[in-house]
């Protein structure tokens, strides 16, 4: 009885804590090749009743009102730059759940009874978010919007999704920059003035090799009628330590003097006077204030004091130095430790000295992702082409089943009958690799192609998925100002299904175990000559007039022998003129 009481009490307190709490955490993880993954995570909750009444505390009011207005049940917004180098960095942070394709990606579950209503709310949502985040989200029109069928599943707890619709839009051409970071920071309770958010600086963030800003809003329910809305803001970035350490006052990279040049000593020709330069120096020491350009300005006073603001994932054998008085807590997993700054208002810094033995950097090995994916164009010329996706399963025993989703712009006309999947090294396509296809063809100027393929890759093998497409020529007003740069094609989204769960369920209903996105592509279309609309109109009209004139001239006029009929007009005129002249000369 007593135990029950305590557990009830505990439930009450924890639910209270969950109902209105805020915490933030920075996770640092050194990666091979002198890269550093920094994951910022900010999370705040609001109870549904408070949200409905408009009592916003940690949840940003500006975003909350937009969500209320567009009756959004769940929202995911991503701003991404760069490429995650899976070959050297391994598995993605958060299993890929907090990243988007290059540019901006947005998907949301909207409450709507019909397609029209959903489209209307989606338009409202994209326009409002466009203003809030200073991004061109309002350019997500019907040609860039899809309704994914298999790829995305809600993360939150929804009593019923019967009356909601999932819409997804991407802007691969959008360049993510400082103007998107500022509104992102403004949503935080401490606004980037204190806590880990004070480390975020546009110069460093957008100089990263890869970065992804994510906003996720979802309802979480402990019980029926006990729900909170959670907003999670995440920034993941992979910093090149060499580049980040470049001093702010001297940011231009200059070749170092010959004696300071880092050389690859493993080359056979390495000598005192020959040097093969290394592109990155291994195992450098770094400090927070060095790589982010400033130290952390205390902790956010609103954050949950139980949650450590800074954690680092590195074997316990390596020393890490923090500001004086900071409490270090080594986690029992032996690979991560967290720090609690002593004084919430004092600056906090953290530094990692270079390892004692340079040959053994003592960092965590990169985790192997479930799948490697690479997508590229095949063929040449501006008339047609093909897309080839190379999907490699590194696991020696386990098959990977996933959903491959492409959203292509309408001016790439894909030929689905040419789609085939084959195991690399085998000449014939294998029909059993593709299990299910959902295809919605593009309609010119109205809708993009949506292709979702549920397929599998056998253990330790590589599968090539290929199909052909044709490039169409557009009206000259439909080309952007830099038409010959090409058109961005959004990233393909690969959702790997969790093989361990939902065995009896139909496969596509299984939750996602890992998500990854390919890079976006640049497709060059044939271009007309933009300088000559008038000339073309004139030339074509002339050709038509020649034919029309020639034919109707013969149709309406009568044929006579050359010496018959009235004199031609010019001859008469010349005759008259001669007569006149003759008369004039005769009079003289």
């Amino acid at each position: 009885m007593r135990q029950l009481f305590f557990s009830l009490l505990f439930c009450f307190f924890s639910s209270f804590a969950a109902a209105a709490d805020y915490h933030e955490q920075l996770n640092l993880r050194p990666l091979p090749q002198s890269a550093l993954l920094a994951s910022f995570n900010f999370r705040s909750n609001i109870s549904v009743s408070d949200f409905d009444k408009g009592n916003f505390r940690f949840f940003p009011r500006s975003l909350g009102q937009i969500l209320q207005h567009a009756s959004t049940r769940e929202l995911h917004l991503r701003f991404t730059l760069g490429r995650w180098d899976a070959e050297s960095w391994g598995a993605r942070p958060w299993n890929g759940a907090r990243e988007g394709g290059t540019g901006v990606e947005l998907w949301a579950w909207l409450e709507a009874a019909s397609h029209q209503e959903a489209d209307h709310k989606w338009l409202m949502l994209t326009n409002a978010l466009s203003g809030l985040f200073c991004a061109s989200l309002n350019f997500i029109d019907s040609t860039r919007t899809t309704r994914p069928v298999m790829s995305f599943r809600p993360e939150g707890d929804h009593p019923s999704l019967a009356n909601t619709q999932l819409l997804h839009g991407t802007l691969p051409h959008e360049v993510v920059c400082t103007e998107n970071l500022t509104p992102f920071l403004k949503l935080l309770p401490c606004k980037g003035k204190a806590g880990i958010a004070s480390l975020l600086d546009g110069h460093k963030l957008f100089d990263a090799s890869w970065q992804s800003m994510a906003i996720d809003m979802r309802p979480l329910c402990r019980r029926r009628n006990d729900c909170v809305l959670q907003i999670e803001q995440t920034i993941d970035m992979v910093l090149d330590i060499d580049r980040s350490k470049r001093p702010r006052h001297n940011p231009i990279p200059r070749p170092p003097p010959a004696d300071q040049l880092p050389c690859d000593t493993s080359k056979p020709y390495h000598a005192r006077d020959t040097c093969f330069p290394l592109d990155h120096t291994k195992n450098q020491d770094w400090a927070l204030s060095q790589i982010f350009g400033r130290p952390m300005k205390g902790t956010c006073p609103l954050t949950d004091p139980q949650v450590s603001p800074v954690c680092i994932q590195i074997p316990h054998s390596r020393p890490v130095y923090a500001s004086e008085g900071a409490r270090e807590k080594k986690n029992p997993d032996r690979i991560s430790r967290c720090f609690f700054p002593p004084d919430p208002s004092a600056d906090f810094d953290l530094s990692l000295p270079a390892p004692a033995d340079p040959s053994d950097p003592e960092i965590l090995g990169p985790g192997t992702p479930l799948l490697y994916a690479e997508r590229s164009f095949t063929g040449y010329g501006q008339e047609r082409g093909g897309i080839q996706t190379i999907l490699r399963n590194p696991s020696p025993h386990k098959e990977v089943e996933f959903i491959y989703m492409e959203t292509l712009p309408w001016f790439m006309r894909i030929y689905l009958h040419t789609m085939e999947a084959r195991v690399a090294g085998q000449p014939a396509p294998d029909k059993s690799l593709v299990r299910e296809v959902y295809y919605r063809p593009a309609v010119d100027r109205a809708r993009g192609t949506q292709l979702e393929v549920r397929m599998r890759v056998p253990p330790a093998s590589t599968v090539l998925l290929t199909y052909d497409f044709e490039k169409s020529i557009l009206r000259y007003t439909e080309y952007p100002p830099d038409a010959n740069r090409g058109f961005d094609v959004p990233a393909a989204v690969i959702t790997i299904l969790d093989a361990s769960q939902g065995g009896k369920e139909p496969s596509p209903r299984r939750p996602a175990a890992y998500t990854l996105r390919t890079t976006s592509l640049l497709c060059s279309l044939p271009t007309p000559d933009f300088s000559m609309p008038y000339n073309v109109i004139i030339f074509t009209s002339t050709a038509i007039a020649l034919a029309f004139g020639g034919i109707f001239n013969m149709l309406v006029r009568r044929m006579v022998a050359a010496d018959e009929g009235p004199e031609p007009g010019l001859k008469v005129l010349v005759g008259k003129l001669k007569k006149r002249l003759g008369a004039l000369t005769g009079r003289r």
Partner: protein
Amino acid sequence: MAAVAKVSPGQAAGLYAAAAALRLAVFAFLPGLSDLLAARVEVSTPVTSFKRLQEGLFLYNHNVSPYDGGVYHQAPLLLPLFSLLPSFAALPLPTDLVYVVLDLLSARAIWRIADSGEAGSSALFTSPRRAKRWSGFVLAAFFLFNPFTLATCLGRSTSAFTTYAVLHAIANAVSGAPLGAMVALAFAGYLSLSPLLLLPPLVLLAYDRRRPAGPAPRSGPAFAAVCAAAVAGVLGALFLLSYLVTGSWEFLPSTYGVQLTLSDLSPNIGLWWYFFVEMFDSFRSFFLAVFWLHLSSYVAGLTLRIRRQPLVVLTLLLGIHGIFKPYPSIADTSLFLALVPLYRHVFPLMRYTFLSASVILYSAFLGPAFYYLWIYAGSGNANFFYAITLVWGLGQSLLVCDLMFAVLRDELEVERPEIVGKEIRQI
């Protein structure tokens, strides 16, 4: 009737066999050539491309509406027809045979038209020069071994169906089967819209050639009304059948709407695509209307002026369509060129044969080269190919005008025999 060398059945069979063997040999031994031709803009337009047909077929067989997309713009009844055949990817021979047989049937139709002698002496007009003509054998051979026809067949362009339907309609009209002619014309119009403009001259041709003892009405207007009703009825039946096959009326905007509004601007040898690429948006609808009006303006003029020779009107209209329709291809040119040798007797009256032949040859060779420069090499721009399409159009319109001049002069010489061999002028 002049003596035309009698062709033995063996010779005819030999011609057909040679044409079929040539096509099948290329299909079997040079599949790369037929794939190359199928990918050429001169052969495959958005409304006749075989690759698009395959895509439509694929979607149709997988229960996705092929018209709910921007790729397939061809007639719905082609889908069940081709899905009856074995899959092209697995076994291409039946599909290839369909195209070969279509070409042979078209050649047979031309043979019938030539043998009828309609080109030289129609019901209202008999040319004094009609003795000088080529036999059906020669015309069929012209058609079957015309490189344009060969390329169309090898590229598996679905315009082969339209070509056959048009030729079959003319052959039926010439041989006194008005109903068969109208049904065939309805099929042609169903497949590619613009042949519907051939209705007035075809009705006149069928009226002139109707059998005296036939059941057709005697008076002209009644005959025309019956013919128009037959075309409308067959078209309606075809649309209804298409509706039953595809389950919706979506095919109408996707098949005919694309031809009317030119929403797909893929390059082709016609004059429309670049004009509408460069057109200002506010004038697009206006010029679309003007272009269609222009295309249909020839029907009335030609039909009235050359009333005495409706087959000439049909030939000239086919030539004009090959230049000015929204998505022309060399299939349309090959159809026109197949009918031109019917007028062997007026060839001596033509003035610019050398010029038009050289212009057509010039653009036929330079067109692919300039297209390559634009799309693949990148050393030319769109104007290169556009200029060639202009020249191509001018060359063909020169030929059309020249043929028309020769026919009109031939008519004039019957009225005024003293003018033969003299210079003439138009007033």
